[in-house]
């Protein structure tokens, strides 16, 4: 089975102290660590597991600048066969739709049976690109997948719904699945592993390579535009417990006794 995986390199903002940059349209990314988008790490792992089981190839795609090679190389080290970076100054400002168009046109040039993407990206969180790519390519999709079973020319997939409920669906190949976190345990990539693939060529394709017109990509090909960003409004907020650890612990005990019925 030939599998295409779409990935994205994103800044890790979980514990970072983030601030808004001068443009007012993005955060200041200097000093932030970047990594493969968490959902995508499960998608690439799933692709490699499927390849290990039944053969075929795994091609990984990413739209982004040269920095994205880092994440593409990580995927190669995990076991992907080929990596392609989609890059063009004209891609700047692409929203979910314009990004999907770029990915879809790149995928058209690759023979595939299955496309995997993450369910969403940690940074912009559209949760839109995978399903949109499927629709542009006119193939069926299943989103929020947390289990895959390959059958003859079709896939049985579990979709994660709310409240611990799952839905089992069957989908004919070729198809696109958006992968939910927790579906597998992404393998660890060592520095040695990265070094081994350091010389592997990562091809770069631009808009003209993909037969895309300038008005189909970037801001001019987008339906939405980010105008500005701002810190979320502060609600009532928490009463902060400060002081020495022992004093804080005493307060926690008092709250538990008062509100939690701690005996």
């Amino acid at each position, binding site marked *: 089975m030939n599998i295409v995986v779409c990935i994205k390199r994103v800044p890790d903002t979980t514990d970072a102290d983030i601030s808004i940059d001068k443009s007012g349209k993005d955060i200041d990314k200097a000093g932030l660590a970047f990594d493969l988008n968490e959902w995508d790490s499960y998608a690439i792992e799933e692709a490699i597991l499927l390849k290990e089981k039944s053969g075929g190839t795994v091609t990984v795609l990413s739209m982004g600048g040269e920095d994205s090679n880092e994440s593409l190389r990580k995927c190669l080290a995990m076991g992907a066969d080929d990596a392609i970076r989609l890059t063009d100054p004209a891609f700047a400002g692409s929203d979910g739709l314009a990004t999907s168009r770029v990915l879809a046109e790149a995928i058209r040039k690759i023979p595939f049976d299955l496309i995997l993407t993450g369910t969403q990206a940690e940074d912009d969180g559209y949760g839109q690109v995978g399903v949109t790519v499927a629709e542009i390519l006119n193939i069926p999709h299943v989103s929020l997948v947390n289990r895959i079973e390959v059958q003859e020319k079709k896939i049985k997939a579990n979709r994660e719904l709310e409240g611990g409920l799952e839905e089992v669906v069957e989908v004919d190949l070729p198809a696109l699945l958006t992968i939910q976190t927790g579906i597998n345990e992404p393998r660890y990539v060592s520095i040695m592993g990265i070094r081994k693939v350091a010389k592997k060529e990562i091809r770069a394709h631009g808009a003209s390579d993909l037969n895309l017109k300038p008005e189909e990509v970037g801001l001019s090909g987008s339906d939405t535009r980010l105008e500005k960003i701002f810190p*979320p409004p502060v609600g009532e907020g928490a009463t902060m417990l400060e002081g020495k650890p022992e004093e804080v612990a005493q307060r926690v005990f008092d709250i538990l006794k008062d509100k939690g019925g701690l005996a």
Partner: protein
Amino acid sequence: MKEIMVIAEHRRGEIRDVTWEMLSKGRQLAEGLGGELGIALLGKGVKNLAEVLKPAAHRVFLIEDDRLEFYNSEIYERALIQLITERKPLLTFIGHTAQGMDFAPSLAVRLKLPLATDCIGIEAKDETFSLTRQIYGGKINAEVSFLKKGPYMVTLRSGAFPVMEEEPLSGEIVSVPSPLTDEGLARRFIEFVEAAAGEVDITQADILVSVGRGIKDAENIPMVKGLADSVGGVLSCSRPVVDKKWLPKGCQVGTSGKTVKPKVYIAIGISGAFQHIAGMKGSGTIIAINKDPKAPIFGVAHYGIVADLFKIVPVIKDKIKELKKS
């Protein structure tokens, strides 16, 4: 006439909360625009749901078909393409849920409608709408605009819009003939599966001690379990802990796990993704411990402790043991 259309979400005979949230916001916008509110209800044998929804809109467009017994993106798309093409609502609302995330993007492509997903705010602005979304895991809000003329499609985050008490509307049920045929489907629904029940029912606990990504490694979990034991509470967790297989699914608090309302909820090393907050915001008292003072969890917590959990948790545990003895 400007119409706002809400695609009703229901599952197993029940209207889901996000539907009422979309209707409240939709009504407010429709009134501001001098327009009307419509609901699209798709299903098999769902007339009773149409009756329940009726007072919340001017019209309920009811499409009934045996093929709509279970949600399927392909069938939903076929049914909705026809309805939306005919009605041309200025704005279509879909929940940003497991269901809406599955069909809104492809429906938008088919209808060539500009789509904004996972919105937590929407206001009418000139001839278009201004949207608010969250980025970077809820640490930053973004104002987003549409670059094209309407009609538009927007998915709304569940739990982000309050449900208002309002005077009932005229509510007419309009039966729409099903456009569906037996034409081959590339995707087929098979069955629902319930997640395996955990050993302990976290929804019954008075005190929940919940652990998140900040715990860093499976071998650190017993430290938090120790705190839970010392306060007679139950150990629960956020999604990343289950994703990494450190605790079973039955322990997970949040949208895709359990919704809990203990007397006291202690969140340890949980940043507070909205999916987690949706599952625990009804708790009596919330105490959050996190090293990042900007973590969204502090927005919902009653008490916050900005600290390294590895330093503060053992101190709290020892203090509680000491005070319980005395």
